[in-house]
């Protein structure tokens, strides 16, 4: 059924929190995702013409890199993106067959490949580009939030996390219940001012992005090329040890 499940109080909203401050853009999450999911719930993830020109293939997670600002004030931000498991997923409601659905128990958005007709409308309806078409099987595929890991009783409890979260070498990715205000991920979002991607479209994504911390950066140069006065809570200049301690304490 492609109508959305009725909202119930206390219902789980499983999702990811991605820290743009510490992602180093190593692409390990994308690779681990591909590795796990190629033989997982929604596998295979075919590659087309893999050793020739114009190679392309299915990935549920990709790392984009952006630059923000100009000159010395500019910074590079690595930006991993996978399905955001929205609360209002139009990819589900546009589906004509019922293949796309949102699970009532945890909010995970999935595709039932055995009834998907491959009309691609869901991929048009997703603003984030989370869905990819498998031209081999003629059906749409997407991130499952590693549903075959997080509930997998054959894995030890600490391994019951999405592959992208498990592999991240800098812990830039966190998995949890974003409906529970006391969960680690929810507290992280509150502390760091985590936000939504394209909130103006009203999809209410569950995954949150934590913004890069401001105090690590050189101040933004003003139009005249003169740096503005540092704010009161800026790190002390001069003593390197003091600066280091300040950085350490303000994490």
């Amino acid at each position: 059924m492609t109508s959305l499940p009725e909202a119930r109080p206390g219902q789980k909203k499983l999702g990811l929190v991605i820290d743009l401050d510490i992602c180093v853009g190593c692409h390990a999450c994308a690779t681990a995702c591909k590795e796990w999911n190629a033989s997982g719930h929604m596998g295979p993830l075919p590659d087309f013409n893999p050793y020739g020109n114009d190679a392309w293939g299915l990935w549920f997670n990709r790392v984009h890199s952006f630059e923000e600002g100009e000159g010395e004030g500019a910074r590079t931000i690595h930006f991993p993106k996978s399905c955001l498991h929205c609360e209002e997923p139009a990819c589900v409601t546009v589906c004509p067959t019922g293949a796309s659905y949102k699970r009532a128990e945890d909010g995970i958005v999935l595709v039932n490949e055995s009834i998907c007709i491959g009309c691609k409308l869901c991929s048009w309806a997703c603003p984030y580009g989370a869905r990819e078409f498998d031209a081999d099987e003629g059906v749409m595929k997407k991130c499952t939030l590693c549903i075959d890991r997080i509930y997998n009783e054959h894995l030890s409890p600490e391994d019951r996390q999405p592959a992208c979260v498990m592999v991240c070498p800098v812990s830039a990715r966190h998995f949890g219940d974003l409906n529970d205000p006391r969960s680690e991920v929810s507290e992280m979002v509150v502390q760091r001012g985590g936000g939504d991607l394209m909130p103006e479209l009203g999809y209410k994504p569950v995954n949150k992005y934590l913004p890069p911390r401001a105090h690590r950066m050189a101040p933004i140069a003003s139009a005249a090329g003169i740096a503005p006065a540092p704010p009161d809570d800026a790190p002390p200049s001069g003593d390197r040890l003091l600066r280091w301690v300040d950085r350490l304490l303000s994490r």
Partner: protein
Amino acid sequence: MYPALSIVFFTTASGAGLALLLVLGLGAPLGLLPQSQSFGFVALAIAVLLTAGGLVSSVFHLGRPERAWRAFSQWRSSWLSREGVFSVLTFVPASIFSIGWVFFGTTDGFVGLCGILAAALAAATIYCTGMIYASLRPIHQWHNPWVVPNYFVLGLMSGFIVLDFLVRLWDLHAPGLALIVLVLLLAAWQLKTAYWRYIDTTSAPSTVRSATSLGSRGRVRMLESPHTEENYLLKEMGFKIARKHRMRLRRIARLAAFAVPAVLTLLSLIFGGVIGAIAAGLAVASAALGVVVERWLFFAEAKHTVMLYYGAEAV
């Protein structure tokens, strides 16, 4: 958006076919159209063939065409499913109406009622087609109030141009038909112009800043794509058309879909007879070409928000 020819053909052919069915189903029972059985047969056959041909073409767009029947199930939430349901439902009263008119020579009573019902269902189908596109929030060039009226009026225009040709071919008396064609051509020109003005002067509320939640330090731009080669998203949603070509194709669409058919319809109105029929036939050909170009552009000019993650700063 990538302009898949199967969908371009589907929306133009089915649009014209359904609109023709709408006009026949409504016009014949009300006595506004000639009652000739051979005319009814050819006109209804063309309407059904255009509609069914378009639907078959759309099935070829699917990754799993053999499962197409499943698309009738989710009409509660999906405009695509509703379109499928209404298009098939249309054929039920349309068949009764066609049999009544063609084999029994009547368009009154129950047969006429079926005609009116078929017309209503055909209108609903065209509306659903428009809503499939108009409901997609990530595509600014589709998610706007001009899309549904354009689908509707361009469909009606195509249907009426075909009808005008058939009426002249049979040399039948249908007063005012050519005038309706001219009015519809003018309306379609105005609506398409308004649509193009809208997409030229506005852009999506989403930008690379809102897509990445970045921007506190100034301009946000892509540094590196996630990969060096293309992917499904770029193939499907990353279609780009140069401004120069866009403008040229818009001129072609304007000329072929509206201006030339208008001149030809005027000619057929003035001369009538054989010349009138030839002019009306050429109007059909020109409008068909023009509407295909227009529909191709409707896809080619549409930009998806996913491109904000691949270097676009606005869509």
